[in-house]
Structure formats: C-alpha cells, structure tokens
C-alpha cells in the first residue's frame, strides 16, 4: 500500500513538474498583414488548440505593413506564411523555391469602385479617369484590366486611407471587399452609392491569400505542412460557425498589436472571407484550382511580372493528397 502511494506521488510530482513542456513539432507562422479577421482561422486554430491537436507547436508571428511575409519566408525567418498567389509567383520567378500548400481566398477581394453619378457606369467609362491604386502587386490586375479594354487612365498612389477618393481627388479607387469597401460604408457611402468593378467579372480572377512554405521545408516536413493546413481549415470552419467568439479573439489580437478594433468592421471582414473562400470554378475549399493558377500565370507573363514558365504541379501541393 505504501509502495503504491509512493509511485502515485512520484507520478503526480512528475506531471506537475513539466506541465508547460509542449510536445510536437515547433514552427513559425507569419501572416502578410495585421492580425485581423482576415486571419481569423489561424487565430482560432491556435487559440482553440487545433494545431496542438495535430501535434504542432505553432508560434504566431505578428504581421504588418513593414513585414513582407514572402521576404521573411525567403530569409527563413518564418517557416510558413500567407501571401497572395501573384506575389508568390513573382518570388518563385526570382528563384525562391516556395510552394503553395493551400489556397484560402479563391476570388479577388480587390476591386475598383467609383461614385455613382460621376459618369462611370461601365468599364469603358474608366478611360481618361483618375484611378487610385496601391503599390506593386495591387496594380497587376487593374493594369491588366486597363490593357484588356485598352483604357488610358491617370494613376494615383493610394495611401492607407481612402480620403483622396472621398475628397474627389480621384474618380476611381481600389478597395478590398473585406476591408476598404466597408470603410467606405462607414464613411456614409451606401452600396447603392457606388459602381463596383470586380476582376472576376472580367476573367481576371486572382486567388489571393494562400499558404506558402519553402520546398525544402516541405520535403522534410510534408506531414507537418499538411497538418498545419488541415488544422487551419478547421480553424476557419470554427470561425465561420462561431462568429462572436471569433470576433472577441480577433479583437484581443488587434488590441495587443495596438490596432483599432472596430467590431462591425471585423464582423464584415469575417463574413466576406467566408464568401471569398468558395472556389470560383467549383472544387474544395483550400484547393488551388489549376485554371485560376494558369490564368494568373498567363496574366503575369503578359505583363512581364514573371519571365519563367512555372508548372502547376511544381508549385502546388494539395492539402488533400496523402503524404
């Protein structure tokens, strides 16, 4: 009896001594923007222990405007990151061997808007108009669109606000459906006040947020990568189904990173993400569609953003293929 007691005591002591020690593979993850509802699935997977369930010990790095996720990936400051497909393809073109292991946003959230009553009702009305665009990859689709319709526009740089559009410096501005579009609503613009141009309507659909790793990391940690995507997709599923809880957690992360956390804005963002995750040509959530891939590659080659031929099966590993 005494022996048994001692054994139990030792076992209990051992358990209490090392409760914090986390088992499993450690990996770092960096989103390509601030911790907002755009990344709710990752936050949920982390907070609700989905990563741990898969034996992953994930470190969530804080993204932001001054941290290019793809640069950090190339420099191996993170193991996994989120990036736009078009951005990733350009980096791959520059010989960084990264691969897509899961595609989240299937449809372009980027879109152009104009004020109703400004005389812009169709795509051809953009000709000769002042158009505000963000830098770099945000210009690929608009410029391809202008080329496609042979439009000459006056380009304006877009900062972090939409004030140049609101103050009528430009006629057209770029917005993300889940972000700036709602900010415009919060400045008093109703949906009916705006004319909207969505790129998928002009055969220029660019899948956006995808999950990327370096090929060499993938080759060593294929199961880890697949588990990470699976846990993340579970996180998203949970996030869409538990809006209030998710928004509370997102708010916590935003506040921690010293960003304003507007509840309605984050709610809008989360709801739009759910829509944007639906593949444009059918298929599963989380899969990169080859047709979308080809379309983006074609557009990027045409605009000179990439020079090489990038093959789909080299670039993409489906999360649903068994390791």
């Amino acid at each position, binding site marked *: 009896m005494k022996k048994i007691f001692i054994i139990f005591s030792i076992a209990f002591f051992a358990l209490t001594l090392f409760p914090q020690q986390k088992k499993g593979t450690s990996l770092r993850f960096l989103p390509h923007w601030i911790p907002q509802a755009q990344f709710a699935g990752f936050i949920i997977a982390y907070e609700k222990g989905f990563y741990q369930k898969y034996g992953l010990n994930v470190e969530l790095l804080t993204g932001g405007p001054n941290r290019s996720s793809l640069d950090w990936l190339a420099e191996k400051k993170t193991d996994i990151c989120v990036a736009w497909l078009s951005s990733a393809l350009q980096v791959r073109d520059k010989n960084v061997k990264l691969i897509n292991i899961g595609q989240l946003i299937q449809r372009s959230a980027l879109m152009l808007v104009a004020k109703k009553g400004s005389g812009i009702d169709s795509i051809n009305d953009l000709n000769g108009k002042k158009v505000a665009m963000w830098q770099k990859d945000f210009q690929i689709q608009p410029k391809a669109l202008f080329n496609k319709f042979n439009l000459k526009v006056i380009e*304006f*740089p*877009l*900062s972090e*606000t939409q*004030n*140049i559009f*609101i*103050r*009528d*410096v430009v006629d057209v501005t770029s917005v993300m459906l889940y972000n700036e579009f709602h900010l415009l*609503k*919060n*400045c*008093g613009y109703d949906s009916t006040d705006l004319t909207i141009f969505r790129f998928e309507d002009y055969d220029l659909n660019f899948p956006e947020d995808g999950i990327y790793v370096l090929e060499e990391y993938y080759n060593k940690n294929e199961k880890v990568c697949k588990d990470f995507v699976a846990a993340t997709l579970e996180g998203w599923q949970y996030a869409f189904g538990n809006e209030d809880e998710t928004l509370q957690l997102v708010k916590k992360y935003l506040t921690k990173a*010293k960003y*304003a*956390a*507007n*509840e*309605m*804005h984050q709610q809008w963002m989360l709801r739009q993400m759910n829509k944007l995750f639906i593949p444009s040509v059918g298929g599963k959530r989380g899969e990169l569609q080859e047709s979308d891939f080809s379309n983006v590659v074609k557009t990027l080659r045409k605009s000179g953003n990439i020079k090489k031929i990038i093959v789909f099966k080299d670039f993409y590993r489906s999360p649903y293929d068994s390791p």
Partner: protein
Amino acid sequence: MIHLRNSLAVKLVLSILTVSGIIFLFIFGSNFLRSQEILLKNVRENAKNLSLATVNKIEITLNKVEQIPKTLAYHLEHSSLTEKEMLNLLTNVTASSDEITGVTIAFDPDLFPGVKGEFAPYVYKNNGNLKTVYLRSPENNYQIKDWYLIPKELQKSMWSEPYYNVDDDSKILATFSVPFYMKKNGSRICVGIVSAEIDLDWLKQIVKMTTLYKTGYAFLISHNGTFVTHPTKDFIMNETIFSIAEKYKDQTIREFGKAALRGESNLIKLKEFLKKKDIQLYYMPLLTNDWSLGIVIPEDELMEDLNALTKYILLYNLLGAILLIIAITILANRITRPLTKLAAATDEIASGNFDVAIPEMNSKDEVSHLAASFNFMKISLRQYIDNLMETTAAKQKMESELKIAHEIQMGILPKIFPAFPNRSEFDIYAAIVPAKEVGGDFYDFFLLENSFLYFTIGDVSGKGVPASLFMAVAKTLIKASTSIDYPLNEIIAKVNNDLCTENDSSMFVTIFFGRINLRNGEVDFVNAGHNLPYIVSLNGEIKKIEKTGDIAVGVIDNYQYQLAKIKLVENDTLFLYTDGITEAQNNLDKLYSENRLEIFLDSQRLSSAKELVQNSVKEVKQFSGAAPQSDDITSFVIKWIKPMEND
C-alpha cells in the same frame, strides 16, 4: 334595497367624473403637447446657441493655426528662402505657437532649388524640444500622404482627417495644409505644401465643457464621420457615426450622419447609441474643416421639469377627483336620504298605515316640495279612504238588507220538490235563478179540493226592493183571493183592483194564472200580459197557449179579464217562463228568443218536469256565456201525466 350600481350617488359620481375626466384629459393633453413644443423650441435655441459658442471657440483656434502655414506659403511664393532661412522660420513659428506641434514645408521632388528629389523639412515638438527631420521615402513617402496629395491636387487649403500621432498614440492630430506656388516659365505652378499640425487635445477639452442638463454631452465627428471626441473613449478614432448605425442597426443614426456630413444643422430625436435612451440631438457643422458638432440632450432630463409638473397636475387632479367624489356623495345623500325616508313612508302607507309621519324637510328644494306634495297626497288619500269606508259600510248594509229582502221573497215561493210526492198523475217543478239585483219574478202552485191544481207565474215591473215587495203582495193576494167557487178572471180582477188601490209607484205585474182539472186535463187560465206558456206534447208541434190580449195587473182599475180554456192530453207539458229566458243576452247582444226556446223545447219532449226546468236553465246560461245575467230567470213546468183517478 337599491343595488349599489343603481344608486343615484354612484350614477352621479360616475357621470360627473367621466365628463370631468374627459375635459381634464383634453386640457391636460393639449397643454402637455404645447408645453413640450415650447420646451423643444427653447432647447433648439439653447442647443443652437451653445453649439454656436462651441463652434466659434473651436474655429477661433483653428483660424489662428491656419494663419501660420498661410503666412509661410505667402513668404515662400514671394521670397526665395534658403534652406537655413527656411529651417529658422519653421523653428520660430513652431516654437511661438502653443497649439502647433509641428510645421512642414514639403516640395514636390526636384522643385526646391539645389536639391535633387524630395525636399520636406519638418520641425516638431518632442518633449518640449524642437526637432528637425527631412521627410523622405520610403519611410516617409509624403507625396502619397493625404495632407500633401489632396490639397496639392485640389489646389486648396484644407484640414486633414484626424490621425494618431505616430510616436504617441494617445494624441490625436490634424494637419492644416496650404499649397504654395512659384512662378516658373511665366506661369504660377503649385510646387508643394506648407502644413501645420496640431494636437487636438484642446479641442477635446472645449467639447467636453459643452454640456446641457445633467448628463447631456457633445461630440465631434470628422468629415468622414469618425468620432474625434466622445465621452465613450472606444468611439474615438475607432468608430464612425455609420459604424455605430450599423452596430445598433439604426437607420436614423445613419441618416443623421449623412445630413451632418452634408453640413446641415438640425434638432432631431434619436435613440442614444449606448444607453438606448431617447435623446434630442442638435448638430451643427464646423465650416472651417467640414467637421460636425453634435450635442446630445437626454429627453428624460429635458422633460424632467415638465414631467414633474405633469405628476403634480395629475396628483392635484386626483385630489380634485376625490373631493369631487366626496362632494357629490354628500350632495347625493342629501337628496336621496329624504327620498329613502319618503320611500319607506310610502311603503308604510301602501301597507295601510296612514298614521306614519312624512319626514320633515328643512330645505326649500324640489325634494321638500315632493315631501309636501306627498304629505298632501297622504291626507287626501286618507280622507278618500275614510269616505270610501263609510260608503262601503253603507252599501254593505243596504246589500245585506236587500239580501234579506230577497231571501224573504224567495222564502214565500214553494221550493220543496217533489211538491206532491204521492201524486203520480202530474209532475211539477220550478226554479228561479235570481239576477244580482233583487227582481220581481215569482211562481206559485197549490191544490184545491185535491183535483184542481192552481198555478201562477208572474213578473213585476222594475227591480229592487219595491218590486220584490209588490211581487210578495201580488202572490199573497192571488193565493188569498183564490177560492174554488170563483172563476179565475174574477180572482185576477179582484187582485187587480186591490193592487191598483194606492199604487202610487205605478208598479204592475204580468201574471199567468191557471187551473188544471187533474181529472180531465182541462185548463182554465187568465193571462194578464205575461209571456205565453208553451204546450209540449209527446207528439205534434210545440205550441203557445192562445193569446187572450189582457193587460198586466195593477195598471187599470176595474179591468175586466177574460177567462180562457184549453184541454191537455195525457203527457202534455206546460212550460211557463218569464222574459228572463227569452230576453237573455249573449256577448254579441243577441237575445235568446222564442225561436231558440221552441227548438229547445222540441228536444225536450221526453224530459221530466225537473229535467226540463234544469235543462232550460242550463241552456240559457250556455247561450249567455260570460255575459252578465240582467233579469231573473224563471222556469216553471207542469206535466199532466194522466187523469186523476176518482177517490
């Protein structure tokens, strides 16, 4: 006992309270609405004045700040400053102004002489020291910043949207930007922006001081609807008026936001964003920077005085209503108490007690009139009833006397049947059904020498005691005067003479007087004006006895009456009657008539004397139905069955 619901007091209270309640509610309601209107009008004035004062205070500071970049822009256009002079100038103006936290002169790239690319010196306050930096890409790509790009493109001085200080996010800043120009190749081109930025802390303080009532407050929203100040800290820079509208799903807030951003001013009613209380919101634009000031006045506080007043008015009215109820109840009781007493007295009187006293009334109102009338009625009623009692007593006495007279009258008629039980050769029966009043019908029969049956039926004119007395006299005289030796007509003549003597009241009597010789059925008779009897035989027709045409007895003195004779056969019946039968009336005023009598008699050939009398009475009564009997009905039957055998 009167049910409470029917009580006069309750009815009065209910009706007066209802009417006065409706009047009160109408006056109170319209007064309340009017007061509210006046109150809101005053609030609008107050809020407007307060807004104006606040807006002015803000704009004075903003205008003061605006002067600095404007002056700098003027200098830049009209004098060529070296970099050093420029930095001196920037340092001096930044140091000299309390409000300004930093000033920038930003040139378009390559446009500041001697410098390739961007040139934008920025002098700012940092913990009480002045620092100078040159804004450069990529960290400070000023060319795409709102404060630079927008005024430059629009060629217009303007205030920026508020923004957080990069170094200290507890501070909210705003920038006033002025485009400046230079002459180049003969034309005036915009070469850059002079801007001054200010900390908006002072503005927060001004808005914070702007309050109306206990918890009323003011807030400021920017040109985009962003909260610049608000008592709820979370709102500031994080929410816009439109995100609040979305959050609380309140379209009226969104409408307000749009109107405010259009630069309108108004007083509107809203639900408060957080507490969901009703508020009045006055809003007014700041013309300097297109922002909008809102003043929130909680409606419950606004209406506090009015509501308190309303409560008092309601309380007073409640007290008034209670007083009214008491007054009406007292008044109603004053009216109903004597009425109740009167009612009790009436009940007593109704039950026959005329001695009950009618309650005394001290007042001189309608009720005392009623009591007086009532008293008079009681006295009159009592007199009337006394009279009635006397009259009734007299009448009763008379009636009882009459009854006695009638009984005497009837008592003298032979009433025991069968009258001759040991005589089988004839059958005799008679009956008088008297009318209500004493009448003068009579009948009589008697035997003389065992073989002569004398019989008589009569009807005295008139009614009442004189008639009955006259009948008694007539009957007695006939019987007294009858003797076997006298012929019947002489007997009647004698009676006639006796009755005519001293017949002052001119009464008369019709008489049928006869004698049957029971041996052979011969009948002698005198008919003094009476209804002719019928002879009913077993066979053959019903026939009346022949008329003799003599007049009634007691009319003419010394009148000579005729003697007539008939002969009966065996089983012939003599049916004698008075006009009470033939002149009996039914409800339709039809007479029974001789016709009906003859038909009746025709059906009675086999009846005994008793049966015929009783049937005839029944027949006449059946005919009359419910019609009152006005005369005595006398039915008298003699049936000669067979000749009398000799002794």
